[in-house]
C-alpha cells in the first residue's frame, strides 16, 4: 500500500511522535506506515483519514494504482479449475 502520511504530517509541521500521540499509537507504528513496511488496520486508517479530514482513498492507494475495481475483475477460479 502506498500512502501520503509523511507528506500530510510534515505539511502540518507535526513530528512522528506528535502524530502518534494524536492517533493513540506508538511512534514506531507511524514510522512503519510512512516507510510502507506496515499497512494499518481499517480502524486506524479511518482514524488517520478523520484526523486529516480526508477520505481513506485520498491517503492510501494500493501498490498497483491501476488495479481494476473488484467488479471489473474476472471471477476467481477454483483451486482445481
Amino acid at each position: 500500500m502506498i500512502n501520503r502520511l509523511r507528506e500530510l504530517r510534515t505539511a502540518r509541521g507535526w513530528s512522528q511522535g506528535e502524530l502518534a500521540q494524536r492517533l493513540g499509537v506508538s511512534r514506531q507504528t507511524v514510522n512503519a506506515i510512512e516507510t510502507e513496511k506496515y499497512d494499518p488496520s481499517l480502524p486506524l486508517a479511518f482514524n488517520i483519514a478523520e484526523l486529516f479530514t480526508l477520505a481513506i482513498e485520498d491517503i492510501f492507494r494500493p501498490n498497483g494504482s491501476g488495479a481494476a475495481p473488484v467488479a471489473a475483475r474476472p471471477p476467481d477460479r477454483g483451486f482445481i479449475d
Partner: protein
Amino acid sequence: MSVCADAYTPRDTRNLRIFTIWCLSSAVMFVGVTFLIRKDIIPHGPLAWSLAIANFIVAFLAARSYLVFLRGADELLRRIQLEGLALGFGAGAVFMLSYRIFERLGAPKLDSAHPYVVMAIFWAIGQYIGTRRYGMGGER
C-alpha cells in the same frame, strides 16, 4: 526518547510493567516453592499442596496479564508479539517432535520443561526479527 518509548504507548508501558511484576512474582514463587518441596523443608501435605496451588494461581495471573497487555497493545506491537509467539510455538513444537528421534538414537533425555526454554528463546528472537523488520528509525 528511548527505543522503548518509541515502540510503546503509555498504556503498553503500564501493561508491560504489570506483566513484568507478575512474571517476577511467578518466577520467585516457582523457585521458592520448588526449593521448599524438593528440600523437604515443608512436609508433603496440605501446606505443600496449598503452596503448589498458589504457585499455579500466580503463574495463571502472569499469563492473564500478558493477554491484557496483548489485547490493549498498539497494533504494530501486537503484530510483532504475535509473530514472536508464532515463531516460539513453532520452534518449540518442532524441537519437541524432532528431538524424540535423537533420543532414540542415544541423545541425552531431556526434561519436559526444555521445550519451553526453546519456545521462550525463539519468542525473543521472533520479537527481535519483527522489531527489525518494521524498523525502529525515523524522525522523532
